[in-house]
């Protein structure tokens, strides 16, 4: 191609060549236009109508400084994109965090999850992993205890390469379905500690179509989760198909002195998974039953 370009440019001086150069310049301009498009593809801004549907027209205040969302700029693996939502109230603000709604605008079902928190939970940070189908804006809306809604947003580029928002090891996903883990992390931070809930589940979206039968692989995903500290509910979650396989939630909380944690998850097939752990768990389990 560059050989051609040189040949073409060498003919400068002839009438034909000027035509060629002009046409090339136009082509280059259009190619450059294409490049800039590829770098930041326009994504349809559906947020206004999405927000209106999800929050029924309630006003969404700018959450800058109050609520933040942290995701990699590029979804390296379309199936597992880490996301951290954080609410930081200024000193003297006595409000608490009531709910967080995570919305991945361009995904087939935009509402990824809604977390509701109990007053006593003291949760200010929660992380999970989501599937990203395309270039998309991602929004998080925090509802504080005065019922005001605050918005933060970020933008994620779709992954390249062979990654897909699908299971990597589908047999393993089926064989281990329903296993759960709970981990309390060692280092307390002030009054808060950090813990993690892990659930083995393929979280099939129901949107994947068999190319031969043209039938959709049935949806089966975790759509409800409750986490208790002793008898006190920490948080509940309702989720859709954007949560990654093996749903995983890492969160800060304020210990209430309870000696156990309990987790109950339910999937769309109606299966219920319940487990309980001592509150002292601070190291990852050495259970290797599913190697």
């Amino acid at each position: 191609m560059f050989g051609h370009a040189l040949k073409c440019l060498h003919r400068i001086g002839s009438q034909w060549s000027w035509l060629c150069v002009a046409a090339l310049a136009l082509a280059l301009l259009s190619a450059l236009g294409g490049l800039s498009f590829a770098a930041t593809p326009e994504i349809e801004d559906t947020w206004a109508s999405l927000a209106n549907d999800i929050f029924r027209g309630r006003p969404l205040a700018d959450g800058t400084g109050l609520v933040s969302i942290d995701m990699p700029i590029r979804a390296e693996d379309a199936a597992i994109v880490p996301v951290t939502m954080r609410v930081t109230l200024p000193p003297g603000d006595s409000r608490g965090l009531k709910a967080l709604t995570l919305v991945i605008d361009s995904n087939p079902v935009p509402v990824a999850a809604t977390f509701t928190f109990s007053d006593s939970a003291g949760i200010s940070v929660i992380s999970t992993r989501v599937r990203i189908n395309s270039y998309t804006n991602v929004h998080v809306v925090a509802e504080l205890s005065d019922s005001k809604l605050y918005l933060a947003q970020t933008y994620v580029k779709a992954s390249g390469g062979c990654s897909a928002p699908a299971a990597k090891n589908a047999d393993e996903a089926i064989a281990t379905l329903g296993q759960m883990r709970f981990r309390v992390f060692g280092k307390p931070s002030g009054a808060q500690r950090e813990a993690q809930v892990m659930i083995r589940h393929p979280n099939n979206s129901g949107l994947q179509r068999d190319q031969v039968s043209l039938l959709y692989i049935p949806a089966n995903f975790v759509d409800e989760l409750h986490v208790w500290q002793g008898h006190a509910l920490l948080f509940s979650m309702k989720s859709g198909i954007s949560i990654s396989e093996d749903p995983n939630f890492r969160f800060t909380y304020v210990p209430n002195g309870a000696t156990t944690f309990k987790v109950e998850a339910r999937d769309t097939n109606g299966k219920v998974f319940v487990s309980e752990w001592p509150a002292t768990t601070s190291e990852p389990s050495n259970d290797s039953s599913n190697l």
Partner: protein
Amino acid sequence: MPFQSVRPRSATACLTLLATLLGVMPAARPGETADPLPVTEVASGIYAHIGAIAVMTPENEGAIANVGFVVGSSAVAVIDSGGSLREGRRLLAAIRAVATKPIRYVINTHAHPDHIFGNAAFEGAVVIGHKNLPRALAARGQFYLDAFRRVLGDELMTGIKIVPPTQIVEREARIDLGDRILLLQAWRASHTDNDLTVLDETTATLFAGDLVFLRHLPVLDGSLKGWLAVIGELATIPAGRVVPGHGPIADWPAALEDERTYLQLLAQQVRALIKGGETINAASQNVAESERTRWELFEENNVRNATAAYSELEWE
């Protein structure tokens, strides 16, 4: 050179360049002669095209994976069809330049687009894959078609279809091409959960698919623990040389060493980060750094590998 005589050539050159820049070069239509893909005869009757060490782009026409074919006395088997229908057609042209026997089989080593997007070029052939290949294509096929339309563009995607296997391999199978037998082996989850290798017993040549990467950073899309175990088993295959999924043809089993080193380091460091309570995001940023200069496409794939490794190993 007198102006008059070069003018037509200059015009053609200019138009070709314009067409390329504007992306309006017509795709080869069925029946049209495609430019044969460059192939080397690796061993008697065994041909391979070594793909670019790159991500799929319109410029490379998706031709980044190694593809090949084996010629027997009665039939030809294609091993992976390439990353676009155009590459598949160019592979077909390369086959027709050296063999007239019917193309009876298209063997797909796994479900990734750079290995299967050319399948539609080989209509009438029996498509063979791992027992999990149909499931993987069902789960990923439409996503790949949509995602790579953004990457490769409409024109190059024209005619690309997900063509699932009509013959599957549970554990192993042999196919007879006439005076040569190919041994097909299905592996447990490793690079993907649908990896298949092809051994030409006559020349001791192994087509390893993406179970073997050289120069191109290995990409983890199955199971890290599985892959490390499978590497040990692969090493016992009685082959003299390997056509890896990506990278140059190499001696066997020495070709496994580089990827074993990387994958072991990945596993070891990710395990330590999980144990230390690092988040998946933090852990994926600084893993296997000492391997960075030993591979191409490290930047493009390492974080993703670490993410996949973390989400697998945290269940240990």
